């Protein structure tokens, strides 16, 4: 009986995930296997002459200074994820209250997500403009004589990119947190209030644990998204000035579609894959400490 039930479960499980499995197989697994093969070739896009080069690409990568620099920049870029997560959570909690103009505010916070990327990058470049931009104008007005050069210097550019990315991710995190907060029953909060819990306590002890599966989702996918993205950098600095904002994904993109070095691009992206895999695995193992289902 139980055995039978188990087998039925087994079958049902596959039926439920079956359709999606086929898509993943076709559009992810097979292409991925193909690209893994490219790691060992010198395939240049368009060029029909493909040679087997063994571990040359891997060797080249391990000695490539730009690879390490992009790796470092990627790490700085990733700092944006936890910051935007915290901000998105706070904003979502506030917008989940009965406050004035709630609906409009929610829509406004979602705006970055749907505004044209070109507009986004241009506005930030205008805002960050070192000499005439409003941000530095403001900083000078409050007495900071030498405000940062933001996107225009090799030392500050990556942090300026971080700010843009935090701004972008915040709205996205907020939206998903809002959905998660709908599952927190108001009665529970009401009861806690009657028991004399302070707002800060409620946030930490009740709401945060309740939405922890969502936080985990946002942390993992936020990291993955951040590691994979480069559009915002392509639209603002193209990896410059110098190569101060070249992150790994942009480096993959440049190798693949600027230099047509498909073999080398595949190699770097598989390195990137392994890095994401390790980060995700650490998060997966670590989730037991703080994620409550």
């Amino acid at each position, binding site marked *: 009986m139980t055995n039978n039930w188990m087998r039925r479960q087994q079958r049902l499980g596959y039926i439920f995930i079956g359709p999606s499995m086929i898509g993943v197989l076709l559009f992810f697994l097979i292409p991925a296997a193909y690209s893994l093969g490219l790691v060992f070739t010198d395939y240049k896009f368009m060029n029909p002459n493909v040679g087997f080069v063994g571990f040359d690409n891997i060797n080249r990568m391990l000695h490539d200074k730009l690879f390490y620099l992009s790796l470092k920049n990627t790490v700085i870029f990733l700092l944006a994820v936890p910051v935007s997560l915290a901000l998105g959570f706070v904003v979502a909690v506030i917008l989940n209250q009965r406050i004035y103009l709630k609906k409009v505010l929610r829509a406004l916070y979602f705006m970055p997500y749907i505004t*044209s990327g070109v507009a986004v990058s241009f506005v930030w470049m205008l805002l960050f403009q070192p000499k005439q931009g409003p941000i530095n104008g403001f900083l000078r007005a409050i007495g900071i004589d030498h405000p940062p050069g933001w996107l225009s210097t090799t030392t500050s550019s990556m942090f300026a990119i971080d700010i843009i990315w935090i701004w972008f991710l915040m709205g996205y995190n907020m939206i998903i947190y809002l959905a998660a907060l709908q599952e927190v029953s*108001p009665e529970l909060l009401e009861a806690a209030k009657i028991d004399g819990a302070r707002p800060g306590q409620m946030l930490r002890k009740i709401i945060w644990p309740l939405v922890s599966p969502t936080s985990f989702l946002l942390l993992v996918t936020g990291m993955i998204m951040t590691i994979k993205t480069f559009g915002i950098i392509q639209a603002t600095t193209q990896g410059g000035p110098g190569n101060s904002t070249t992150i790994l994904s942009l480096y993959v993109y440049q190798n693949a579609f600027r230099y047509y070095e498909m073999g080398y691009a595949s190699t770097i992206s598989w390195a990137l894959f392994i890095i994401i895999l390790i980060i995700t695995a650490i998060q997966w193992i670590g989730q037991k400490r703080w994620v409550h289902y």
Partner: protein
Amino acid sequence: MLVLAIVMVMPFLWMISTSLKTPAEVFKYPIEWIPSNPTWEHHVKVWSGTKSFGTYYLNSLKISLIGTIGATFLSAFAAYGFSRIEFKGRNGLFMLYLSMMMIPPQVLFVPKFIMFEWAGIYNTHWALILPAMFTIFGVFMLRQFFLSIPHEISESAFIDGAGHFRIFFRLVLPLAKPALATLAIIDFSWHWNDYENALVFLIDENLYTIPLGLQNFILENMVDYNGMMAAASAAIIPMIVVFAIGQRYIIQGLTNSAVKG
């Protein structure tokens, strides 16, 4: 809150105001948020003439709508399997899923390109729609939500003799409305703004989507920002509609959770 909200919409305001400016005013400092002599000529240009945005608009709508509906439904199905049915190899399979999400998309272009050509869907809308129906993020997101729906609910349903399909359609889906709506909003915006896939897989101009149409404003050695922003402001409207509809479902969840509590 309001101040922060203004920072959030700044690019949006700039987009609208640029679409009403003349080219010479675009890069003026201090930034003119309200153009002194607003002109509608760029908006007119976008919708008239030989390259009207109408076609791009319809194409984008078709791809994004089919893609989003398909993706939301298929993700919910798979997420249910991953979260509420115990079966052998479930965790391993899920890890495989997750790992596929990590592959940089640029690397998948060439093999996908070869596959699409072989299947005969290169340079058709299906080359965008079919892959769009499968989102690993969606499966992951809904799985997290389904996991937090109390197990007691389905257990009592099992005792009443309901099968997984009934539980899925009658219990889990209605409870997950906020999550489904959120996924649909996010997914729609991805398809709506997808530039790279459209660029690589479409050639015929009458198949073009809005992100490709925006490229028309890149002239040889400069960019027509006014025209581009006029087109981009029009492109945002469907997103706002989807958001407005979606938001209603997100809030509806509140009343549902009261039932469940």
